């Protein structure tokens, strides 16, 4: 049932195409996730190339977040996930936002120190951690917000704090869950710029789930259209133009999409 991923290389504008495609950074092979009797994902194969930005799109309930959770190893799945990086390499994860409680009295630097020092954060920050956090915040354009409680951040600022948390130490792969949700346009653009800059300066590979059409167009090197299985994989222009790209009506109600009403249930 699954569509095999079209052959690499990714058409990244900046990188010259090598004679032989490099091995992918992360591969999912015939991934399936079942919950009780329901099939959430079936036969999903996907390859994230080094230094590329790979975006997964699809309607609500398509299993996008489930796919991320499986790749992060947080839920049970069948099939294989192969990471082609050195031992000790890690995935930097940027969740949509705090699932639990944003009103806790936790400042930005408290939060960032949680995984950057051994001493309990409530007993104060160690000077090395404090310096590291200041530098990190400057990188995501939030210098000076160290002492601000998380509750007083805007959605875009919180997302950038989560991004800062995920890129230090530099991961092999950055995974973002709906980085545009709940943000205004400038917020989406600012976040996109930081991600592009990370790719440019560090060759960081990115895998993200997105609903935001403009963001997909701007950032993606490669797009996977998912609806419990892979409907299409390829460069963003093709994904948008293909019949499978009927996801536009879901992402922007009222906006003219490439198809008037794409049907996810219809395979391409």
């Amino acid at each position, binding site marked *: 049932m699954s569509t095999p991923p079209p052959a690499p290389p990714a058409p990244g504008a900046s990188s010259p195409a090598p004679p032989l495609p490099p091995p992918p950074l992360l591969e999912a092979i015939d991934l399936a996730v079942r919950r009780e009797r329901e099939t959430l994902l079936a036969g999903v194969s996907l390859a994230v190339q080094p230094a590329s930005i790979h975006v997964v799109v699809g309607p609500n309930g398509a299993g996008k977040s489930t796919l991320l*959770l499986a790749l*992060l190893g*947080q839920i049970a799945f069948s099939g294989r996930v192969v990471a082609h990086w050195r031992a000790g390499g890690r*995935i930097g*994860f940027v*969740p949509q936002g*705090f*699932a*639990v*409680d944003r*009103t*806790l*009295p*936790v*400042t930005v630097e*408290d*939060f960032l*120190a*949680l*995984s950057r*020092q*051994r001493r*309990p*954060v*409530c*007993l*104060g920050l160690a000077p090395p951690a404090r310096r590291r956090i200041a530098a990190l915040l400057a990188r995501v354009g939030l210098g000076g917000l160290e*002492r601000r*409680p998380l509750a007083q951040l805007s959605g875009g600022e919180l997302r950038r704090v*989560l991004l800062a*948390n995920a890129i230090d130490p530099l991961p092999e792969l950055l*995974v973002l869950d709906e980085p545009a949700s709940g943000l205004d346009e400038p917020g989406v653009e600012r976040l996109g710029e930081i991600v592009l800059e990370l790719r440019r300066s560090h060759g960081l590979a990115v895998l993200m789930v997105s609903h935001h059409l403009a963001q997909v167009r701007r950032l993606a090197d490669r797009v996977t259209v998912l609806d419990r299985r892979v409907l299409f994989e390829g460069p963003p222009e093709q994904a948008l133009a293909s019949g499978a790209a009927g996801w536009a009506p879901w992402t922007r109600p009222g906006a003219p999409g490439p198809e008037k009403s794409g049907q996810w249930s219809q395979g391409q």
Partner: protein
Amino acid sequence: MGAFYSWVAGLARAGRLPADFQYPFLTRGFLAVLILAPLLGGLSHLVVARRLAFFSAALGQAALTGVAVGLLLGEPLGAPYGGIFGFCLLAALAMVYVKRRSSLPPDTLIGVFLALTLGLGLCLLVAVTRRFNIHQVEAVMFGSLLTVTDGDLLLLVAVGAGVALLLYDRYNALLLDSLDPSLARAQGGDSAYLEYLFAVLLTTAIVVSLKIIGALLVEALVVVPAAAARNLARGTRGYLLASIAVALLAGAGGLAISTRLLVPTGGAVVLALSLLFFLTLVLGAVRGRGR
């Protein structure tokens, strides 16, 4: 310890300490509060962060049943620790276990457990009162300074140190897991271990505090200090310090009130706590408006 109590009593008679300290049992009670307040107040800020207020209330109830179980099994009236600790731990682990495996909301599940332990406790207490005077059982339920011994104090110190040490080691992981479990897991945190660990630490701390503030009201001391601190604090440091300060103030204040008005210590401490909570609520609101 005897020499210490007479030294303190001497100071009190000389007028250098409040007259209360002439009595060893009050000195002992005050010492207990000095250890208890930072322990439970400190725990409270994680209890509130992890949304375990209702869970703590259920543990307090379970302790009541635990007292009955302990007494029926022949434990001494002054220290049915085996029954309390055994039953509370069983209830805590069972609640966490079921919560992790059920899709029902946690408060619904805890409600089920609460009803179960209460029903069991009620039946067992009737059996207990055939053998003991209900007023003796009341001392355990509501807490009484008169029954605190040096052994209880020693246990409190030992357990407090153990809990503090384990928390020191796992604090950052616990707080990250409270903020976002999925992020914590992605960074290598073991959320099942953390959840069970915290449930065990909380249960242990609650059990050793029972004799001083009582089974029914121990829950207040692991919830209200942090609730009050949250009205004021901006960062985790202030949150912890304010939680401990509120617990200490309410503990010492409640103790002083209970000896003067001859009301149960637990009740007095909780009244003091509630007063502080509403005070911080107003303070926080006034400060918020000023910003």
